[in-house]
């Protein structure tokens, strides 16, 4: 390939990405502006909370339990070398509440609910349901997109809290029940070290932001996809890949803001 052709393709790629980012931002603004319907007809949003939140419960709870159990095992293995296995509770709780809870729950949510939202909206587009709505003077962004977006924003912090709580229970099961760390020290050291505002609330803020990012990407990819079987499957894959990368990048930025200098 000639260098000039390579440069032209690179330019086209960058322009295309920027155009998509601009369109996605305008789409998010429209979703927020048309959210009135989602709030007035609350059952639309509640139905979507059921599909994205309730149906993701099992994967979140089971993953949380196992992540907590692994943290308990690995944490004990490291801490007992320094004779401070009682600090296991602190290690498990801080890891979960600050980082793993919001991030892993968001990655699972993107794979389970985000991909489903994209596929659903993409199929609606492929079968011309969105066009039919427009024909009937029903705004598809208000009727289809906004309830799914807000359902993701509401579901995500609840799922992250459940993930963290289940993880702490998993850490307790392995550390206290299986290995024999003192239960009193496990809980008291945890309570002394985990701060409600600094750790728990910041974790909740993170998960709300992640919920908004995943829902935005999922509804946009679904709405913008090519209306063919191949287009829908490509959009579903893009949702998982883009939202996973966006979560990790946003996590770095949020962590830098929230916990700097500590």
């Amino acid at each position, binding site marked *: 390939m000639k260098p000039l052709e390579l440069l032209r393709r690179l330019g086209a790629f960058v322009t295309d990405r920027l155009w998509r980012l601009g369109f996605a931002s305008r789409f998010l603004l429209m979703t927020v502006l048309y959210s009135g319907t989602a709030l007035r007809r609350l059952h639309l949003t509640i139905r979507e*909370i059921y599909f994205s939140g309730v149906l993701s419960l099992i994967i979140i709870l089971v993953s949380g339990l196992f992540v907590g159990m692994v943290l308990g095992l690995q944490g004990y293995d490291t801490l007992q070398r320094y004779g401070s296995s009682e600090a296991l509770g602190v290690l498990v709780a801080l890891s979960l509440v600050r980082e793993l809870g919001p991030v892993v729950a968001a990655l699972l949510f993107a794979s389970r609910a985000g991909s489903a939202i994209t596929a659903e909206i993409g199929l609606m587009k492929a079968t011309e349901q969105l066009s039919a709505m427009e024909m009937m003077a029903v705004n598809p962004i208000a009727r289809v997109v906004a309830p799914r977006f807000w359902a993701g924003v509401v579901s995500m912090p*609840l799922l992250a809290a459940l993930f963290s709580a289940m993880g702490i229970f998993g850490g307790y099961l392995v550390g206290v029940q299986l290995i024999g760390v003192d239960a009193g020290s496990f809980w008291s050291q945890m309570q002394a070290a985990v701060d409600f505002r600094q*750790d728990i609330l910041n974790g909740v803020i993170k998960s709300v932001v992640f919920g908004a990012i995943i829902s935005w990407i999922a509804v946009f990819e679904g709405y913008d996809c090519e209306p063919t079987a191949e287009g829908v499957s490509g959009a579903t894959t893009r949702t998982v890949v883009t939202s996973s990368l966006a979560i990790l990048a946003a996590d770095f930025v949020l962590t830098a803001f929230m916990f700097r200098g500590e």
Partner: protein
Amino acid sequence: MNRATIDLWVGIFVALGLGALLFLALKAGNLTATDVGETYALQARFDNIGGLKVRAPVKSAGVVVGRVGEIRFDTETYTALVGLNIDKRYQFPRDTFATINTSGLLGEQYVGFEPGGDSEMLKPGEMVKKTQSAMVLEKLISQFMFNKAQEDEGNNKK
């Protein structure tokens, strides 16, 4: 699935999520034990505060009697000025000794209060006169090495 069943499941989901948050706040976090009640301010000057942080506990006889309010550097004396918020229920004699201790080998640092025998009590805003800085491991090791070297030198001279 009809709307009532979906509403029920979403209700259970929201209740579970809020319950998990409550569990994290009360059982895992220190929401119930963070703040002492009404407080009065004291100040203490330390040569070295080590890893002491704002909101670290002030303990006397192992009981939390207050928290560190602020830490700043005094440019006139080149020492650390630590503001302490002490629970109004507890009064301490003027010759109270404030030390910076570490809970356990790897634990957090806190300010320890050892009350003296003075009949007068510390008043709000007053300075705690007697203080002992945090133990800095590097200093202790270098002191030990220095003493050891001096000891060996003395033995050789004999």
